[in-house]
């Protein structure tokens, strides 16, 4: 027990707590021009690799993703753009 306690104290002495900071690396190259609506509506909150890395998803799944982004995360997506946005997502990573 004594040994454990000592080693814990020794560790605490060796762990240093300095101010740390983080700079985001640059975003990846943009999506193709045909996906402009995706760039506008999605990449404000997350970079585009995430979209490009998805498996081929059904139209219904992409529509549900758009609905979730609006309902849960309050993404400012104009409802008038929904149909075109889903089309663009299907064109990018659709079944």
């Amino acid at each position, binding site marked *: 027990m004594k040994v454990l306690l000592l080693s814990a104290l020794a*560790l605490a002495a060796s762990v240093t707590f300095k101010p740390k900071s*983080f700079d985001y690396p640059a975003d990846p190259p943009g999506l193709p021009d045909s996906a402009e609506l995706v760039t506008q509506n999605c990449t404000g909150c997350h970079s585009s690799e995430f979209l490009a*890395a998805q498996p081929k998803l059904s139209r219904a799944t992409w529509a549900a993703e758009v609905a979730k982004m609006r309902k*849960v995360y309050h993404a400012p997506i104009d409802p008038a753009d929904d149909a075109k946005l889903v089309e663009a997502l299907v064109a990018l990573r659709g079944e």
Partner: protein
Amino acid sequence: MLSRRQTLAGLGALAAAPAWAREARLGFANGDRPYTSAFAEKGEMILQRTRAPLLETPFEVFDEGVFTPNDRFYARWHYQDIPLSVDPRAHRLKVTGAVNRPLSLSLAELLKLPRVELAAVNQCSGNSRGHVGPRVAGAQWGHGAMGNALWTGVPLKAVLERAGIKAGAVAVRFGGLDEPPPDAPRFLKSLAVDHALDGEVMIAFAMNGASLPLLNGYPLRLVVPGWFSTYWVKALSTIEVLDAADDNFWMKTAYRIPATADGGVAPGTSQFESVPINTMPPRSFVTNLRDGAVVPPGPRALRGIAFGGASAVAKVEISRDGGASWLPAALGPDQGRYGFRRWEATSDFAPGTATLAVRCAAADGRVQPMRGVWNPGGYLYNAVEQLKVRVA
């Protein structure tokens, strides 16, 4: 002594890509990813997403030892507004809610409390999601959204006892320095009071003997041994003791699994009774041979890692015939029941093809299934890994 080229050839899939186009091949459709070394305190990582960061540990790191180096440890954030700078002297951990004495602890005050230290695997709920079939949306991880570290910190129990939990409290909720977009729900997770007081749940200030990288939750993160990483709140800044069940989005709606024995449902099922994701099932991997490798005939030393999840590794077995027959592997030193454990075996390969498989059974009776479970979140994947090897 093997040359680097020979070593890479032994790893199979890595060998084909020229240096200028080297990509991580995660082994599923649309599963090639670039490497990056552009993130602070991180060495070479697999880039899943720049913002909010999703960085995967390259699989070969797991062959190097049972502890995953801090600079190769995977990182995953939900919201892009992560703490971009942390001043440890200014950081406070607030304890509020159903307590007798609300606290606002500095790091110096926290360091005066009793210490605990243990090895534990931190694994994303969606680790290996890219291997789930049929595929589901979400982070398309290979197997590298996991890591094992020696965590040092203060038992959560010691902090909660100092604050004094009021009678009738049912849950303890944790939050960090990351911020949601306007009107989105803050990332908060909670544990039942009894779990929070079990003495193992830890407020960690060090991993592998050093302060946490900022991307892994500097200066403090919750460590919940045996449980998926969603509960291991990073840059921990608030602890609220609740006198009613937590109905925030991240407990009530997100990170839910089917309330079935193995957490799986028939593919495509969307309606089912659900519970918050919780303990990890066992997993095991071969780390010195890749799927698709070509090996010479004869005996060959195999090695890898295993972990039991919520309990210790009880047994690791190897199959050369795709799971028809199994032989025990030798286990390396026990570094703690929640950590990775090395296994080793020698296999005699006859010319032709072989399907190598590795399976872990945990002390609590859970055993890896041959087929991964399916649920719409792509959680809990722990199928027996199978590697096709050509012997020539």
